[in-house]
């Protein structure tokens, strides 16, 4: 095996040094009754070349662009990733390093995370961001747990327009320690209706997503004002498409106490849903109560600027069962990818790109409307929108598939009141020609 450097002679010499006769003797501490009966039954070992063939075949069974034209969003978005990001990520000093516990030889990782934290606060309009978490859904769950710790209240309210799968994750995280999650209904226009929340004092936090699961842009400012009529209740803003904030007002400037969500859009491959990036930012006053790693700026013995993991007394390895979370990693390499992406695209570029994304989706939306599709929700959307096609899209989708077009996420499993409603998405990766092909099929 090419990953093992040991020759028979090495093994012999090393065993001799230890005072043993065989490799089996190394395991003498393990009682006979604990030894595995029989050998492992596994395929392989494959040569590098056999593995390539096998993996090529598996990957070949997947429907991806350019062979397929994909119009799917719903929490995972197709965006171009500059080659620069892909190649720089392969600098193995980054990807083969551990958590930067030894700052003297981890300054590359540490400075990059500090830059990630900074760009994240700027994108979201917040004061502090952590070094990232697993994904958008778990970041939201952690945000709600943080609000519960902060307010000592045991209930949270989450909009039904927060991604349904995120709400499932929230349920998993909050029900284990016995907290309650209440769902907030929505209005006919496709935005959250906070009027059902009678006594805000009951809630540790109110969570809204914008753009929401239907792609609709929420009026966060008005919602924030309403939520802050109670001084303690935290306003949590979730997101699945952070590119939107290249164009839209940020959560921070609209009153969010915590902004959290998925960063996949910003330079991370979709990879069938993971790994993604849990982005998490908050207002300054919550910093010591935040979950996750933080990198801070300091100086070294020579007085030079440097960076370290800091405020570790919040964390599991120091505070153990009283920690702010059990998380003991971040999605470091994904955060690095996002930093590289944001650096490439830049402030000017991000705005142009966000506008282009919006315009593409608007083109598709209008085109579909022109061929008879109904847009049930009136408010402006970003990148994705819900449609209903007379006679249903299910049949059309089958026809589309024959043309290798994959369009629309069926929302009825999550919203039974909307049968035959689909969520469609277009980004900068969808050309006008592809959109026209889709429109034509829906119209025919």
């Amino acid at each position: 095996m090419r990953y093992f450097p040991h020759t028979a002679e090495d093994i012999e010499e090393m065993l001799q040094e230890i005072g043993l006769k065989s490799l089996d003797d190394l395991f003498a501490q393990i009682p006979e009754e604990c030894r595995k009966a029989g050998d492992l039954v596994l395929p392989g070992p494959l040569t590098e070349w056999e593995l390539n063939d096998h993996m090529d075949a598996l990957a070949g069974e997947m429907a991806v662009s350019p062979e397929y034209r994909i119009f799917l969003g719903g929490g995972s978005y197709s965006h171009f990733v500059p080659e620069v990001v892909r190649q720089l990520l392969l600098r193995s000093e980054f990807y083969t390093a551990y958590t930067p516990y030894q700052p003297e030889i981890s300054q590359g990782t540490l400075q990059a995370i500090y830059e990630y934290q900074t760009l994240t606060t700027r994108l979201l309009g917040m004061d502090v961001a952590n070094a990232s978490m697993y994904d958008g859904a778990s970041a939201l769950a952690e945000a709600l747990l943080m609000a519960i710790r902060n307010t000592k209240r045991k209930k949270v309210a989450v909009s039904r327009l927060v991604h349904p799968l995120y709400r499932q994750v929230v349920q998993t995280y909050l029900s284990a320690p016995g907290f309650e999650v209440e769902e907030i209904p929505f209005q006919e226009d496709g935005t959250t209706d906070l009027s059902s929340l009678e006594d805000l004092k009951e809630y540790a936090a109110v969570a809204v997503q914008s753009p929401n699961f239907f792609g609709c842009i929420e009026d966060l400012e008005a919602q924030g004002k309403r939520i802050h009529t109670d001084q303690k209740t935290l306003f949590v803003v979730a997101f699945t498409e952070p590119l939107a904030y290249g164009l839209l007002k940020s959560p921070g400037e609209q009153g969010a106490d915590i902004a959290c969500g998925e960063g996949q859009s910003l330079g991370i491959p979709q990879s069938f849903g993971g790994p993604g990036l849990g982005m998490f930012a908050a207002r300054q006053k919550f910093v010591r109560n935040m979950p996750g790693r933080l990198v801070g700026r300091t100086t070294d013995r020579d007085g030079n600027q440097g960076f370290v993991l800091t405020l570790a007394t919040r964390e599991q390895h120091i505070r153990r069962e009283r920690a702010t979370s059990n998380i003991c990693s971040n999605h470091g390499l994904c955060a690095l990818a996002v930093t590289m992406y944001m650096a490439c695209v830049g402030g000017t570029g991000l705005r142009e790109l966000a506008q282009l994304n919006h315009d593409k989706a608007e083109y598709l939306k209008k085109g579909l409307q022109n061929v008879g599709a109904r847009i049930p929700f009136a408010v402006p959307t970003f990148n994705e929108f819900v449609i209903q096609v007379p006679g249903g899209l299910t049949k059309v989708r089958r026809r589309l598939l024959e043309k290798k077009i994959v369009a629309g996420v069926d929302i009825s499993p999550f919203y039974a009141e909307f049968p035959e409603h689909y969520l469609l998405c277009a980004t900068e990766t969808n050309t006008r020609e592809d959109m026209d092909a889709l429109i034509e099929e829906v119209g025919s």
Partner: protein
Amino acid sequence: MKELLGATGLVFNEPLLWEQGKKGRSGYSLPRRDVDSSPLDAKEVGSGPDFPDLSELDVVRHFTRLSQWNFGVDSGMYPLGSCTMKYNPKTNERQASLRGFAAAHPLLPAELSQGVLRMMFDLQQHLGEITGLPAVSLQPAAGAHGELSGMMIVRAFHQDTGTPRSKILIPDTAHGTNPASAALCGFTPIPVESNEQGVLSPEHVASVMDDDTAGIMVTNPNTLGLFEEHIREIADIIHDRGGLVYVDGANMNAVMGIVSMGEIGVDVMHLNLHKTFSTPHGGGGPGSGPVCVRAELEPFLPVPRITKKGQKYSLSEEYPKSIGRLQAFYGNVGVLVKAYSYVLSMGRDLKQASQLAVLNANYVRKKLTGVFHLPYDRPCMHECVFSDKNQEENRVSTLDMAKRLMDYGFHPPTIYFPLVVHGAIMIEPTECESKETLDLFVDACRKIAEEARENPALLHDAPTKPRARRMNETEAARRPCLAG
């Protein structure tokens, strides 16, 4: 000693991203605009993020320079105990970047995602074979996430029997995250001391196990690098009182093909694919922490689950007893591809990986005995734990020696963990290091021990060769500056 590994060389100073660039530069090829502009209402529109504008080469130089300030497995030996910093095979990166995997949308219909579903299904089977626990979920995103799922399963199991329990036993040689993971599920962690041999004694476990205790969360091999040799008896004690045995499988690299966790009474465990199965640590993630359980506990696994009918794979949520969903989608699939590639590349040689990992650890243990104090002087598994007791009289600490190792070209071992050893130095060489590299490492340690006696100031000042010196961590925590 041969020529020192650690040397100095030209690296570059590099400012923060926003301290460079100019408005109007761009490092991104903006996609062609083939549709009309459709402006949003002014009340929706913000001012846009205050990011620097950089050229492509600016970005390339920036991150290349930063990378040169880092130490990775590809740079040199990284003997971090319990972290299993083994070589991350290059072929795995190729496989994960194949378009079919990397560009796959998670909400593709099952008939259009058979390749990835099959890969995941087969990986579950293989991990089931390796652990002896046949029901596997690949959803947890990291080790601590796997622990959390495992604890949720334990909790759900007791609730299902109608008798919820409130406590969980956690040995002092368990991993540091365990108490926090248990607490997130509402359990009260009860610490259990290990004995003079560094392992759990069945009598002691029996004395703390009761009918309100959900089970035990044991790291095996434990963080002293020792196999919990009484695990079978302990499992019987726990099971007799209706509890479950959870194993933190972070140290599975020691016993692949040697111990079947299912056969020795373990009910639930998690694996760290970024340790045992060679996926890179990425400077702190993403990892992957699959949870494996015995068949009776399968109904509690996270959803969705992958099902196979004939030759067709699909995702199913129809498991009413499931603990629920832990990530929006199905786990860190990009990481799973790498672990799957590793398992196929290794096959039955996985056992040899464990044998050589244990060989390397024992070789280092033997060679360093006397140089450093060995608190538990007995053969170890994949890692060995020393302390700084021999150097105390010279006022040299574990931290000083760890920092000095950098000057010699090695990443330091895990230090000050496990907590049961004062000033712990926890060394895990992994199977990937050659005898020559281990000898160099041992020589460096000897030299450092000598310096501790003769010139302790050298150690107090270390490191001197890396670009950065020791950091003022107190200042960082007192006046946190977390964004620029």
